[in-house]
């Protein structure tokens, strides 16, 4: 039963990956990365149960934290970059 879940998660990851490749705007890519990150957290949790050693869930917690931080970082620096180009344009 974990195997089914893991396979579905892999399919969803493939879809998110495709969106990250295609994404016309940068926000689409950010969204895809975020979605990919949450799916990775789930996949890691499921993989721990699949391997029968669920004491490695710390990694999933780190993922949830780091994913949040990196999304904030992208938003923050992308905002800056846009301001800079606007200033150049004027």
């Amino acid at each position: 039963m974990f195997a089914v879940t893991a396979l579905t998660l892999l399919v969803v990851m493939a879809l998110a990956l495709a969106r990250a490749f295609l994404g016309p705007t940068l926000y689409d890519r950010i969204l895809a990365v975020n979605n990919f990150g949450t799916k990775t957290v789930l996949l890691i949790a499921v993989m721990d149960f699949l391997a029968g050693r669920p004491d490695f869930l710390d990694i999933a917690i780190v993922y949830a934290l780091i994913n949040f931080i990196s999304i904030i970082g992208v938003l923050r620096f992308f905002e800056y970059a846009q301001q800079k180009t606007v200033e150049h344009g004027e």
Partner: protein
Amino acid sequence: MNLIGLYNYWIVVTLMMIGFYVVIAHENLIKKLVGLSIFQTSVFFFYISTGKIHGATAPILDPKYDLYSNPLPHVLILTAIVVGIATTALGLALVVRIQESYGSIEEYEIQSQDTQDQMESQLEAYGFRKKHDLSIQNLDE
């Protein structure tokens, strides 16, 4: 089984070659650094793949298990990752400084500026006066 047996190593080679290509064929220094990190990660995969044993579990001892994967590659790669980020940070700092003094991070633009500098200083050594309308500041603007 025979085909799958070497699959990991082939993928490692493919990744390494993609990284290598990015490093030698692209001229943007940031892109080169990304390529370098892809190259680096492929080496990590190689080490970790050699340490894996089928049916084994992670090398954290537990009386319930008796077959563990090899811990030595894990130790080497763990420290290599952290050293990798330190060197990447140093590389990025250098790129930022290059951008500030040359106004560009494309390799051929930097090289052409260097060549021009050299020619100017040679001309000066032969006694010609520096031509101000050809100096780098003017070209930049």
